């Protein structure tokens, strides 16, 4: 199965307001797809539909070959939300253990997984600290580590690098590219435009529509500008 995510003509309304107008999007195995767009363009709703928290009014949302909402598929998705979403009174290890158990990682494997993911995000030495004592960056890293638990086929990361210093950001991207090369698929939303240069394909979301979906280089050529940031600005202007 090549396609990890396949959204076709998704439409989602909340009451009279149309949040998603017509979203078609694919994420393949071994590919990082960036989802960019201004606030209110429908990024979070798109992600919520992929996870089955919302149900589309029209169109199909296939994730790992299953029509969403589907509970079992969730075990194979690593999700990281915009907020850190950690249990502050627990320590990092207890957080990892809890979410590992929720994901259905077997207890034998869980110990190995915790050691692995915590080394990826550089938290091995502070695993026994309460999260309430963590700095903002540490929380973000722990949040990412939780998403990586259980070696999911698909990662859905909502703004994973907010509040992380440049050195660590580079390290995280290094790891994401590693995961991609191992065949995982990654959907990532971001506000940091130079990060999108590192993705394989970028989807530009505006007013609930995907207005462009191609590799960063193709997009820059298509719009005749040097960076994705310029593509973003130009596309927004053309739409208005």
């Amino acid at each position, binding site marked *: 199965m090549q396609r990890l995510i396949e959204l076709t003509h998704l439409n989602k309304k909340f009451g009279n307001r149309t949040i998603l107008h017509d979203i078609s999007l694919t994420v393949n195995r071994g590919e990082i797809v960036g989802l960019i767009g201004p606030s209110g363009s429908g990024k979070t709703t798109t992600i919520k539909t992929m*996870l*089955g*928290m*919302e*149900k589309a009014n029209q169109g199909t949302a296939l994730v790992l070959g299953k029509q969403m*909402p*589907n*509970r*079992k*598929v*969730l*075990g194979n*998705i690593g*999700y990281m*939300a*915009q*907020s*850190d*979403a*950690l*249990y*502050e*009174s*627990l320590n990092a290890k*207890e957080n990892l253990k*809890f*979410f590992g*158990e*929720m*994901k*259905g990682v077997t207890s034998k494997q869980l110990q190995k997984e915790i050691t692995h993911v915590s080394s990826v995000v550089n938290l091995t030495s502070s695993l026994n600290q309460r999260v309430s004592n963590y700095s903002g960056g540490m929380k973000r890293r722990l949040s990412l580590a*939780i998403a990586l638990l259980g070696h999911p086929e698909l990662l859905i990361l909502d703004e994973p690098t907010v509040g992380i210093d440049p050195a660590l950001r580079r390290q995280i991207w290094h790891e994401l590219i590693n995961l991609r090369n191992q065949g995982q698929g990654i959907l990532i939303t971001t506000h940091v435009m130079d990060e999108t240069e590192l993705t394989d394909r970028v989807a530009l979301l505006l007013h609930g529509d995907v207005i462009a979906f191609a590799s960063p280089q193709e997009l820059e050529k298509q719009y005749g500008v040097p960076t994705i940031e310029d593509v973003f600005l130009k596309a927004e202007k053309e739409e208005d």
Partner: protein
Amino acid sequence: MRTLAITKRTLIELLRDKRALALMFLAPILILWLMNVMFSANSDPKVEIATVNVSQTIQQNLKKVDGVSVKAVNSNRQAKNKLKKNKVDAIINYNQAKNHFNVTYANTDSTKTTLTKQALKAAITGQTITTLSTGIQRLQSMVKSTNPNISITQENTKAPSISNHYQYGNADTSFFTKIVPILMGFFVFFFVFLISGMALLKERTSGTFDRLLATPVRRSEIVFGYMLSYGIISILQSTVIVLTTVWLLKIEVVGSIINIIIISVLLAFVALAFGILMSTLANSEFQMMQFIPLVVVPQIFFSGIIPLDSMASWVQYIGKILPLTYTGDALTQIIMYGKGLTSLGTDILALLIFLLILLWLNIIGLKRYRKV
């Protein structure tokens, strides 16, 4: 498995929040202690009556009544003045010509008014009896002097003595004793509802709930996980409440305390499921706070503290849909009549039905946050 993991996590969170934990157990004890102070206050009314033109006999008789003191006043005007200044609680004015008592009450405290009325009635009856018995004595002596041969058997004129026996409680058993079982249930419900209502809400506002729902956990596993962890806490909490009530308020329990705890724990589970349901519906802590009077206050009104028998039937139906009605009844049966659990089948069944419906609603209600 996931249920237990959620239970374990929630318990660790609860145990590490020392302040909330202390409040969970200390707040009920404090409230019950305050209630004890309030209920044990002496509530016997005392009245001071001003009398105008009232005979010595009546005055003496009035004084014999508990809590009544009498002050003879010369004129009605003087008495009215005292009443206005709140020095006396009532004026009794006797009109000899009409043989008529004019009574004016301050009537700011109905118990005092009632006491005055009773005292006056008793005093008049007392006077009548005294007059009658002196009349009879005079008659007897008259009969004896005219015809000594007629023998008049001397009846025992002493009043029969009364000794009181109480099947439940003692002479001090009051209205409060009757409502204590219901109040006990109320406090269990209130405190458990309070903590459980915040439980899921905190998880939602911190964002961990979304992350939890992004794993293949079942909605029922979340509900049961929470029920189990908070259930353990509320078993402890309701045991504390029951024991404090029985010990502090010196309640005579005819039945078994274990049975009281079992019923209370059952109610605690209903309150728990109710609290979790409300926290699913509330969007913020503030809204949750607003649910508290909405859910809790009707329970006081309609659960039997105020007798509903004489009210319209639709009012009685409201009582039937409130869990506290059944707990109140069950606890009263255990405490006052010593009934066992087997004879409380209806109440227990009703509570179990509440619990099942609420659990089901909770599992359905979580669909709001994830569609499967």
